[in-house]
């Protein structure tokens, strides 16, 4: 398989009067041809910055990038015809209709006029295409954005939060659309916070946290390597969970509390849990290894799982220290 998109050691520091902010800190990413690739990360982790840099909107401070085997930003003008992109809810000039907006883009990019009608049909805006964009709902604008990205029949489609504002039907349509596009040979890079969705449609993912890659690979691989260590613990009915939780935390366990049970995130050796609790006369009634889902892997890797009694601030994330192995081994 060939890499359609390669990023290595990407650096970006924003400078402003308020000081400097290191948004990307040696970020790496590889996307193989024909895949649907999920690009995940907490708010402010650098997803949009990565995509903007890749598409030549902002200048990186270091690192190298290639699209379809060509170095960018140097060769961007040549590959641009094969890349369709939307970056974080693009805005359109409100007084033009969807039809006008797309046909102007088609003109500017030398795309056949028939494509305009085709993509409007594809994203379900056919009957509203003569309305001014100003009058569109959030989801309709998002659909228009996706339509604009598809206009060129790109080989690589980059979508930054395309599901933002879509209704459930729209999300499902988007999912089908992505799959169909990938089957037709298109490579899709998709950033999203809807992890259930990503797990359903993506072949592979890259997870970014604080400007660095913390995990990458096929969805199955990422799940396998990162979540086997999580177990669900239930106590006998009527027994107070709090002493047990304090005890485990004191021993270094990552505990998150649900209403009638709790989970230990880094339980490499579940027997440890029963032993610690039993020594204090607390008996476990349920101890189930959790089947991994992308959400819990994501929370674990990025260190953004909610902690009781704390309000996590946006930049409080785990940086580039993949939590493997874990407690209790």
């Amino acid at each position, binding site marked *: 398989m060939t890499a359609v998109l390669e990023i290595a050691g990407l650096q970006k520091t924003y400078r402003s009067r308020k000081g400097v902010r290191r948004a990307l800190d040696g970020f790496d990413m590889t996307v193989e041809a024909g895949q649907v690739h999920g690009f995940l990360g907490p708010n402010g982790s650098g997803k949009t910055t990565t995509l*903007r840099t890749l598409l030549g*909107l902002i200048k990186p401070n270091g690192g190298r990038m290639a699209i379809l085997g060509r170095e960018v930003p140097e060769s961007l*003008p040549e590959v641009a015809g094969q890349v369709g992109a*939307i970056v974080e809810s693009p*805005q359109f*000039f409100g007084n033009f209709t969807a039809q006008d907006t797309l046909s102007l883009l088609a*003109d*500017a990019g030398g795309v056949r006029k028939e494509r305009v009608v085709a993509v409007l049909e594809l994203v379900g805006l056919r009957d509203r295409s003569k309305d001014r964009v100003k009058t569109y709902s959030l989801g309709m604008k998002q659909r228009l954005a996706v339509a604009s990205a598809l206009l060129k029949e790109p080989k690589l489609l980059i979508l930054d939060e395309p599901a933002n504002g879509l209704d459930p039907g729209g999300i499902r349509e988007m999912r089908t659309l992505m799959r169909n596009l990938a089957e037709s040979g298109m490579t899709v890079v998709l950033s999203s916070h809807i992890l259930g969705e990503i797990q359903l449609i993506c072949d592979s993912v890259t997870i970014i946290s604080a400007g660095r890659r913390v995990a990458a690979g096929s969805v199955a691989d990422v799940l396998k390597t990162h979540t086997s260590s999580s177990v669900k613990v239930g106590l006998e009915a009527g027994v107070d969970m709090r002493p047990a939780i304090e005890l485990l935390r004191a021993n270094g366990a990552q505990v998150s509390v649900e209403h009638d049970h709790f989970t230990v995130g880094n339980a490499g050796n579940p027997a440890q849990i029963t032993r610690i609790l039993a020594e204090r006369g607390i008996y476990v009634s349920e101890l189930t290894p959790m089947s991994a889902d992308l959400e819990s892997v994501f929370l674990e890797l990025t260190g953004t799982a909610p902690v009781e009694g704390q309000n996590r601030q946006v930049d409080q994330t785990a940086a580039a220290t993949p939590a493997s192995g874990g407690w209790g081994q």
Partner: protein
Amino acid sequence: MSLYSAETRRLTKRRFTKLFILGVTLILAAVAVGMFFTNEKVGPSQIASAQAQAQQDYQRSQEQFGRDMADCRAAQGTDRAGNWPPGCEGMVEPTPDDFQAQWYMPPTFDFLENFPDMVTTLAALLALVAFIVGASFVGAEWSSGGMMNLLLWRPQRLRVLGTKLVALLAFFTALTVVFSAVWTGLFYLIAQARGSTEGLTSGAWQSIGLMELRGLVLVIVAGAVGFGLASLGRHTAMALGVTIGALIVFQFGLGTVLSLAEVKFAEAYLIPIWMIAWMDKEVKVEDYNSCDFSSASGCVPDSLTLTWPMAGGILAGVFVLVVVAAMWTMRSRDVT
């Protein structure tokens, strides 16, 4: 070429553009209609009536003078003498020269003499429209995020901005050429109906043509400056704000300071005088605080002549400065 035609289409599709062009058309039409109705053709009967009126006024003032003189003489030696100049001297007797028939002529539109002002009017209005439309054309694109979309499509920044600018300037060139032609034709007809088209030699036509050409240059520079400022500030309001700020600081503030400081030729630092110099080929600024005495003509104020090449140099300088600055920042800025 595809980008160019898309930009032209975008420009002409905008309601803002349509609205302003419609507005300027209405204003120009009003000016033409006004000129048509306030002027009339001068024939033998108008000349005769003007002469008669001049003669009548001359006689009336002659009689008045006679009465005043008599009153003055009568008052000499009484206590009313204070109301008159001492010895009744210095009372000026009117002469026929003070009542020339030409001042009694109805207004008439003499093409050769009056059309140049109309050319300046047209150029000034079109320049204003070009400035505002140019600023909004790129300003709205920046502030709405349309520029980002366009750059995703064509990741060639200078090319995108340059094409936009060229499309804008080409549009306004065509517009100015068409408007100038119609404007000239219209006033030629008005002159024929309500004045005269005498003295229109080929040389006269040539100088009118050149003046219209200078008007075109003014429109282009105004459009480019509006565009450049709005692109630098990424907002329409930026261009308008900078301009209004510059006008206030330079025209009112600087004007006041300079005249307080009694700087020689203070007007030469102000923008309008340069516009006039450009359109009328030259303008003379005089310093009334000075006196170059000559026995032939007495005291003559110092003067400074601003010529169109000087004004043209300034226009070119502003054009290059703003456009280069806009292109330079476009090259390197982060588009977020």
